[in-house]
């Protein structure tokens, strides 16, 4: 089975580059020392490698749930949680204890089994998707040849689980929330995938570690050769970012769980640990999609400036992840929620045409650069993308975004 096309080089065990894989190596060595059979060693190694990733991101989830509240508080000139522990550092623990000790309520009209299944199905794809991301030069938990496709294939399971959550609850608000969530996710998955396709076209591979490796090096000696710093990559990156906000159900696209409109969307009928699982799935999904964006457009684990290579590569990755997540928080603290018709119209009339345009731009860019016409490549692709972008924005601003809502009962 060539599913696990391993990129393995035998490195020094104690180098900082290898720190994240140290637990896996130690367990493998220990089992080998004890004389365990080879299949057991490899399975244990895989389990420990998976455990490392899950552990890192569960820690990140706990930290983010605190940092998000702190950042939002600062944006609103408040202090935020500061009671549990030093600067509120124990707040996630307090939240966790509260969630775990809450009563687990299953509505009388709910489908018991599906109601239980949905929160699990929300978390599983997020964790699976996190497994294929290259976090460092030597740290790709599962190095798949078809990593990008795997990411999107697994990510599409989320829609079904949101539907199950909404439908199995047997009540109105979850149903409405699930319908909103599905239509939003389906609409924004299209431009998300299309904007990622440009990267695939240029790098000629679906393997995420290879995509990162191709973004190494620097233009003019200091501009990193990331995909974001090409015309098509700039537009595709911004489109990808907007779509990932919608896919992660973050403000301003958090209509599926808009608390002032439909309680909590598909999570309304969940409490206790199941609700915590939804929360966790959402944050892990946010991590996963940000990590994919970094891999595709921000050079993954590549250092941002030459001469910074002495730091282990995974530090750069997590630094970029922190910045991207902070952008999510900043945007959440700034923009009001959009209306559902504006949301859909934006997806189909702005995002998809622009995403489709990045594909020919990426093709022209690659061909012209291959033939050595670097200037011509800029001269063609920038207007090719910029002019339609301005036209689309102006039209959307003038005509479509301000489409008057018709009220049936008011007035």
């Amino acid at each position, binding site marked *: 089975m060539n599913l696990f096309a391993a990129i393995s080089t035998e490195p020094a065990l104690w180098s900082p580059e290898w720190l994240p894989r140290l637990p896996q190596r130690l367990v493998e060595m220990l089992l080998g020392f004890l004389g365990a059979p080879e299949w057991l060693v490899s399975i244990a190694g895989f389990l420990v490698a998976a455990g490392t990733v899950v552990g890192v991101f569960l820690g990140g989830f706990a930290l983010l749930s605190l940092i998000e509240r702190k950042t939002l508080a600062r944006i609103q*000139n*408040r202090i935020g949680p500061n009671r549990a522990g030093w600067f509120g550092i124990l707040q996630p623990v307090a939240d966790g204890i509260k969630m775990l000790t809450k009563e687990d309520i299953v509505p009388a009209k709910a489908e018991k089994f599906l109601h239980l299944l949905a929160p699990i199905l929300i978390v599983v794809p997020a964790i699976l998707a996190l497994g294929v991301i290259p976090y460092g030069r030597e740290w790709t938990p599962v190095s798949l040849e078809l990593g990008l496709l795997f990411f999107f294939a697994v990510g599409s399971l989320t829609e079904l689980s949101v539907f199950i959550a909404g439908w199995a609850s047997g009540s109105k608000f979850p149903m409405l929330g699930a319908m909103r969530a599905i239509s939003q996710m389906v609409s924004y998955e299209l431009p998300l995938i299309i904007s990622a396709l440009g990267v695939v076209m240029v790098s000629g591979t679906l393997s995420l570690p290879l995509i990162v490796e191709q973004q190494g090096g620097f233009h003019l000696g200091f501009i990193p050769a990331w995909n974001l710093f090409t015309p098509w990559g700039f537009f595709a990156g911004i489109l990808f970012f907007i779509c990932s906000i919608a896919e992660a159900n973050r403000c301003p696209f958090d209509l599926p769980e808009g608390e002032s409109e439909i309680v909590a969307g598909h999570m309304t009928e969940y409490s206790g640990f199941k609700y915590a699982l939804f929360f966790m799935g959402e944050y892990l999904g946010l991590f996963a999609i940000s990590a994919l964006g970094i891999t595709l457009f921000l050079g993954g684990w590549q250092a941002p400036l030459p001469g910074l290579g002495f730091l282990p590569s995974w530090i750069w990755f997590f630094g970029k992840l922190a910045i991207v997540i902070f952008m999510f928080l900043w945007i959440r603290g700034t923009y009001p929620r959009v209306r559902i018709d504006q949301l859909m119209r934006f997806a189909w009339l702005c995002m998809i045409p622009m995403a489709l345009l990045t594909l020919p731009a990426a093709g022209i860019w690659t061909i012209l650069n291959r033939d050595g016409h670097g200037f011509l490549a800029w001269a063609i692709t920038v207007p090719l993308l910029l002019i339609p972008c301005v036209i689309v924005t102006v039209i959307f601003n003038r005509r479509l975004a301000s489409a008057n809502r018709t009220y049936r009962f008011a007035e």
Partner: protein
Amino acid sequence: MKTGKPTRWVLPGLGLFQGLAVTGKNMVQSFYKKERMTTVQYPEERAPISPNFRNFPFLVYDKDPKAGLRCTACSICEKECPPQCIYIVLDRDENGKSLKRPKVFDIDLSVCMNCGICSEVCPFDSIYMDGEYELSTDDRFGGLLFGLDRLSKSAEYHMKLRPEQASEVMARRKADEEKKAAAAAAKLAKAKADAEAKKAEAEAKAAEGKGEDA
């Protein structure tokens, strides 16, 4: 879109960045500009309450908590109270004679709506609105029923809570008292004068009688 106003052309999408700038400034300045922070750390520090804040009635006493209670158990507040949360029993001595003070004075916090009518109608300056707001309790029956012991507060407390109102009341009461004292003194003087006059008359009579006798 016809708004009537002439629309100035701005770069589409500019507002997005302006919004980000505002929130970004908020966030950065919140770390070093103390005057930006609008919240107070509640249990340790408290925001000053407005002198107009009125929350729950209390009974005023002068000097002694028992004997000095201004309330005379006249039951006007009990009758006026819209949600009828006040319950008063008049104290009597063994002969059934009114002692003009309450034996029981209860206010139910869970019923009281803080309207302040009781303090408006009280003719004895006895019941006033408090500024206390930490009244929550985990005992929903006993803890929310305030008896005499928790309702009576000293005149000094009132003076501290609402200096204007309290000093006005104090001045009025003092004037009343002085008037009363003056009246009493006048009465006393008159009685004394009367007595003296009587005495003088009696003396005169006696002297007359003696003279007649002599």
